């Protein structure tokens, strides 16, 4: 094993340890761990990639790895997009409740009744100095 292989192996191993230590293994993390394992296997047996590549009809092992990388990246992109959407929805719901609760805690319901057409003070307006 030459030094390049050793460094890649160390890097993959540390990455795997890090991901395994994260709680709640989601599908994406399980996939990453599997891919890292596969990567480590390929470091030990580089000729395996070529064999696999020939089996599926690609010329070289490096091509196979590149294609796998592209597929994984695309999958990760879609996954992240979905996750981002989900988080944005949650943040929105939380912000909405904050806005409504704050308004109600201010002068709340009474504001509307006091408000239009009322004779509350010279300005006839509510919600002054709520904060």
């Amino acid at each position: 094993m030459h030094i390049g292989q050793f460094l890649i192996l160390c890097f993959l191993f540390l990455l795997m340890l890090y991901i395994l230590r994260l709680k709640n293994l989601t599908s994406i993390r399980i996939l990453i761990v599997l891919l890292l394992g596969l990567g480590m296997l390929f470091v030990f047996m580089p000729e395996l990639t070529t064999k696999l590549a020939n089996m599926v009809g690609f010329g070289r092992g490096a091509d196979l790895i590149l294609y796998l990388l592209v597929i994984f990246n695309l999958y990760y992109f879609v996954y992240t997009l979905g996750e981002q959407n989900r988080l944005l929805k949650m943040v929105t719901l939380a912000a909405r409740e904050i806005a409504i609760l704050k308004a109600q805690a201010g002068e709340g319901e009474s504001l509307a009744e006091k408000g239009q057409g009322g004779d509350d003070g010279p300005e006839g307006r509510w919600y002054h100095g709520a904060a």
Partner: protein
Amino acid sequence: MEGIIKAMSILPKHIFVIVPSYNEGTVIGKILEELVTQEVRVVVVDDGSADETAEIALGYPVYVLKHPFNLGQGAALQTGMTFALRQPDCRYLVTFDADGQHDPQDIFRLVDALEKSNVEVALGTRFGDEARLSGIRKSRYWVLKLATWLTKLLTRLEVSDTHNGVRAFTAPAARRIHLTQNRMSHASEILAQISKLKMMYMEVPVTVRYTPYSMQKGQSIWNAIDIVWDTLVGGLK
């Protein structure tokens, strides 16, 4: 007799007008000045403005809801609707843009349409026969036409103006609508939900006053592209 008619009609205070606003400090006062003279209740949703939009709104007899940060017009509308629906006397909800392009009288034209024709949603249109347009730019006209055509294609609704800010809902209809597209695509999303929920709807011609301010705030061709993107990709869970 007059008393009976009055009792039969809906008390105007049961109309909640929702005004989503983001950095509208220069115009919000003017539009609220007009709105508070109407027999409606006004809900201003300040969408995390950096200017004094909320402070100005607080000077009027209106409800002021403040998003802690900017979320987008769709989110602001939904916040206003959620709030209004929690008020026990809410019968009708009307959305209304803060930039001063709408005529407050149109609120009653829309609500009248809801009362008289038993539909659940009344949509303002600036392209109807009776609709009046003032000062629209040619490019703006075609962007809106394009947006309308795309939305029609996606929602299969027969509407002439998909991105008009004035819409009226009955409370039960509004309760069934859940806007999840925070940005401008909410206009298409409302229509998509009307279509999916098979709601009864009609279009009502309204006035749109194009001012230099509203022109600058309005939708460009880039918005149209964003809207298509959000509509197609935004649904990813």
